[in-house]
């Protein structure tokens, strides 16, 4: 399996811990990369001003993107991901704690692959993460970043 790591963009430290714990219990061997806000996510995906760019994204199996993030919102990050040929193939799962209908619609319009509401009950949340990790990392197939046809 080539793509097996999970990128989690989540600002709340509690949620980071709980998400990592849930994902680890689902697939113990998958690396989990945690980023704290939208800007950090953009820097990771597209390279920062300092020039540390062209990180290899091949290993990424799925991005878990919180809708509400400091600095750059999750929906804005999603938009950027879908705009660039470097990243537009990435599976993105939007994650939110509120079930605001407007967010749901916006997320799919911007090209989200999935949208889930974090369950309050931790057992159910763990169940969600298990299903999610199993589907995106084991069942779903993604192309390699290098083989993505460049546009323009």
């Amino acid at each position: 399996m080539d793509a097996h790591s999970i990128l989690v963009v989540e600002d709340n430290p509690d949620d980071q811990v709980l998400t990592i714990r849930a994902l680890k219990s689902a697939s113990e061997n998958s690396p989990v990369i945690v980023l704290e806000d939208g800007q950090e996510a953009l820097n990771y995906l597209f390279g920062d001003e300092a020039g540390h760019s062209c990180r290899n994204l091949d290993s990424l199996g799925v991005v878990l993107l919180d809708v509400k993030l400091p600095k750059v919102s999750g929906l804005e990050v999603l938009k950027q991901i879908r705009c660039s040929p470097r990243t537009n193939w990435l599976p993105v799962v939007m994650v939110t704690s509120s079930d605001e209908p407007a967010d749901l619609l916006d997320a799919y319009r911007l090209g989200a692959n999935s949208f889930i509401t974090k369950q309050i009950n931790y057992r159910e949340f763990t169940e969600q993460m298990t299903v999610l990790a199993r589907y995106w990392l084991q069942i779903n197939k993604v192309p390699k970043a290098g083989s993505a046809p460049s546009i323009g």
Partner: protein
Amino acid sequence: MMRGWRYWRLKTKLLFLTLFVSTLGIALVCASLIFVENRNYKKQLESELHVIAGILAEQSAAALVFEDNVQLTSIISSLERINTIRQACVYNEQDNFMTSLVGIDEQPCPSLDQRLELGFVDDVYRLLMPVSLGNETVGRLFLSSHLEVLRGHIRTFVWVAIGIGSTILLALVFLALRLQRIVSGPILTLSETAERIAMNHDYSIRAPVSGTDELGRLGNTFNEMIGTIQQQNLRILESRDNLERVVDARTSELSMANRELEAFSYSVSHDLRQPLRAIEGFGQALEEDCGEHLNDVGKDYLRRIRAASVRMASLIDGLLILSRVSRQSMENHSIDLSQMLREITDELKDISDHPPAEIHIQPGMQVVGDSRMLRIVFQNLLGNAWKYSSKEKKRVIEVSATLEGSVIAIEIRDNGVGFDMRYIDKLFVAFNRLHTPSEFGGTGIGLATVYRVIRRHHGTISATSEVGKGASFVVKLPVSGDQR
């Protein structure tokens, strides 16, 4: 008075009145002139005849004394020349007939034995004069004159009067036509001005005014009134503009407040849930990872902490729904209510661990409204019926609809625990509960949400119950969907 008098034009009325009054005046003058002329002519005739009779009496006195009939006849025949005399008779001292002059009608001389009518009788004037010689009466003279001349005279007079009167009347009509303009002119101008103002709604028009008589004052008063109306219109327009500005300002304030409220409820939903999730999540993690270090009391506390956070989360969800149904715009469609209710009860059967219920839903029920909001309503009402009947051995939930004019009444009835009608006032108020959490779980927001949705659909909801025998909720919705 006259039919259609008030539909006549003012000019016609004035002309008519002038003519009527003048004709009446001229007629009266003519009549009195004729009357006077008639009397004068009669007097003249009378005195003429008396003079003639006197002369004849004097001439015939001697002949009467000598009973000289030839002489008498010759005297009387002198009357032939006077053509008004119809008859002349002479009688002697013993009132015996002596001689006579008979005119055209040849009537015999009247006998003096009978009483004679004298003076003006019918078309005749009669006169009886004694013939005296010294102080002694020697006979009598009877004269009768016809009045044809008088009639002819009066007839001529009448014709002349009619001629002069008509000429004067014609002259008056001409004059009246000219002069009535002085009176009717300003009134007509005023009335035309009023019509123009009423038709064009142009209150800047003024009536031309001349003079200080009643008409002038009427014109001035009219102009003042129009001026007042013009000013008031101006003020109304100004205040309307002001009002519009105020309404615009309020509307933008309101929509700003609404946007803020939306942002607030978004934050509430997102930010209040997060710590709850952490409490619940770490509680579970604690139990799983460090469970062996906790005794039973510790585990019980942990369970309570997690249950409380789940309850709090459902409260937040309820509040969010309540706020959403209050501010969301409505999309009214025709809804198959029976189908919707079957879906809801299927969901209830799926997620609930309560014993099964006998559910009767009347088929073919249709309502008009916002399907998302009405789904929330019936989820709550059926959920309540489901929940509060859960302790019955054989429980029955019935939903039926009746049409009451332009309103459809939907009744949801269960045979559960019911509630005390004393607390009906609290039923639809948020956070008010009629059962303790240990009896039945719940947030106290459901029926408040139901109430708001029904109100937004211009409907009503009422409830009746008897403790231990079940509850009945009746939702009334306008059939057409939007009736204010």
